[in-house]
């Protein structure tokens, strides 16, 4: 697949404009981002209470603190917001002006995703640093794990974006694409490393979490950074993460092509 040079330049210009636009809503963004900080603290509090002075499956309180503090950043970087940004555009016919440009409107969703995250990250970082000082997590980070972490984080963000876009594209057929998205959110909560790190899940569920894509949008990069995986698990994890990325890209392409034939929303 080739991407036109003008498309890349356009996506860049679009992202710049979206960032400028986002700054108009910085207070709202800060409040949204704050929720992303608060909810991992709830999981941390529960696991901290269970671990007490001891450990759960080898994880002590400071390990949970490291996990959920990393979770805050990772979940922010990989959050899929397309159901809120791109889906309504399709439903309300706002896609039309974008369809008239020689650039796939999925780039609009990407530009909005990147701009939302980069602007809100600026607001989130100071809060995060404050929490690190208070919670004193035990980060067992190495240069190697950091490098692999960056790769897994980028792939996780891309995968999550494509999954979010797929669900948003369901708006071509149904006005209730949110219901389908809720199923994904629920599965990620259980199997993605959200309610518990995947290594703490019981055997069968853990195998399921390893095979399904949810973990690769959230838990996997955290496990990579905190050195929770051996070489075999790392290799399998990256192989599956890339496989899901390719699958998601193909799915988005197929759904987009079918959807655009279907496009006739009221006011389209």
């Amino acid at each position, binding site marked *: 697949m080739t991407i036109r040079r003008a498309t890349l*330049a*356009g996506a860049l210009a*679009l992202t710049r404009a979206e960032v400028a636009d986002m700054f108009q809503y910085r207070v709202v963004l800060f409040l949204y981002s704050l929720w992303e900080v608060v909810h991992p603290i709830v999981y941390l509090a529960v696991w901290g209470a269970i671990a007490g002075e001891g450990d759960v499956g080898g994880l002590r309180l400071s390990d949970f603190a490291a996990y959920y503090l990393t979770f805050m950043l990772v979940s922010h970087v990989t959050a899929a917001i397309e159901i809120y940004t791109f889906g309504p555009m399709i439903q309300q016919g706002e896609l039309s002006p974008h*369809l008239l440009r*020689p*650039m796939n409107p999925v780039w609009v969703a990407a530009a909005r995703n990147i701009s939302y995250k980069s602007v809100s990250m600026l607001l989130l970082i100071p809060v995060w640093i404050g929490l690190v000082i208070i919670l004193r997590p035990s980060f067992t980070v190495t240069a190697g794990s950091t490098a692999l972490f960056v790769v897994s984080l980028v792939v996780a963000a891309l995968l999550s974006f494509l999954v979010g876009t797929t669900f948003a594209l369901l708006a071509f057929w149904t006005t209730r694409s949110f219901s389908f998205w809720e199923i994904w959110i629920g599965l990620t909560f259980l199997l993605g490393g959200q309610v518990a790190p995947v290594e703490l899940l019981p055997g069968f569920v853990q195998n399921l979490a390893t095979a399904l894509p949810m973990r690769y949008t959230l838990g996997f990069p955290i496990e990579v950074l905190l050195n929770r995986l051996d070489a075999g698990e790392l290799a399998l994890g990256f192989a599956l993460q890339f496989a899901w990325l390719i699958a998601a890209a193909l799915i988005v392409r197929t759904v987009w092509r079918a959807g655009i034939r279907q*496009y006739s929303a009221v006011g*389209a």
Partner: protein
Amino acid sequence: MPPDVSVRQLVKHYVVPERAGGLRASFRSVLRRKHRLVRAVDGISFEVDRGEVVGFLGPNGAGKTTALKVLSGLLHPTDGQVDVLGYTPWDRRAEYLSRITLIMGQRQQLFWDLPAADSFLVNKAVFGINDAVYKRTVDLLTDLLDLGDLLTKPVRQLSLGERMKVELAAGLLHTPRVLFLDEPTIGLDVTMQQRIREFVTAYNAETGATVLLTSHYMADVKALARRVIVIDQGQLLYDGALAGLVQRYAPHKTITVHLEREADLPDLNGQAELLSVDGLQVTVRAGKDDAPEVTGRLLTQLPIADLSVEDPPLEEVIDQVFRGEGP
């Protein structure tokens, strides 16, 4: 030279869910959903040559906008063939989209909270317009549309008319060769409507662009299009010169005479209907075929200072077409 736009037996049908109001109907629709087929465009064919300005007319729901959306590649048709500049619109090739534009009244393509200049820069990049061409085009559009400092104000602070001008400019930055304009003057005051009309005329003259426009304002059509295509309920009713439309569908002519002094009206043999007598001005309406005879009789039997014979207003003619009355 092949036509810029060629449409053959274009069909676009929609299936829409349908149910009556009320709780009972709501429950019933859970079990059995009813659908209705809407024939928005039902087999129309026409061609538009390079540089032509064509008015696309029809009542609400006639299928005009649907047809324009198919032509600009937004919608896939149910059936039929469309060729615009050698491309099939719904393939949505980048080269095709770079040569056309569709401007819809009140449709947003600008960032609401940012100055329009920011949205222009996005279009500049997306369409791959180089700096020199971009500057020249913005200067031209600023001049033709009298944009002044509108480009540096946040879009939300612009009036409807100002925003429409800026939207038009944004849609023309890539100097498209074919313009699809859907109600470009809707909601604008008379002065601004006039301004937009002058602009479209100037743009057409300057660039030789082909223009297909819909409008509810007959003044737009009269000012811009020498040829009109009339569709209703998805079907083509008329395609030809604007003057021909009036000639064909206008059922009568209005004859106004100014008398030199007071006089009794001659017997018009039921060939004309007296519309008004205002001092020395008398207005009658005569059937199209009877008009010459009525005019002759008025001229010979009345002390006339001045006489004019006019077609009815275009609105009335169009109404006649839509109601299926006429020849």
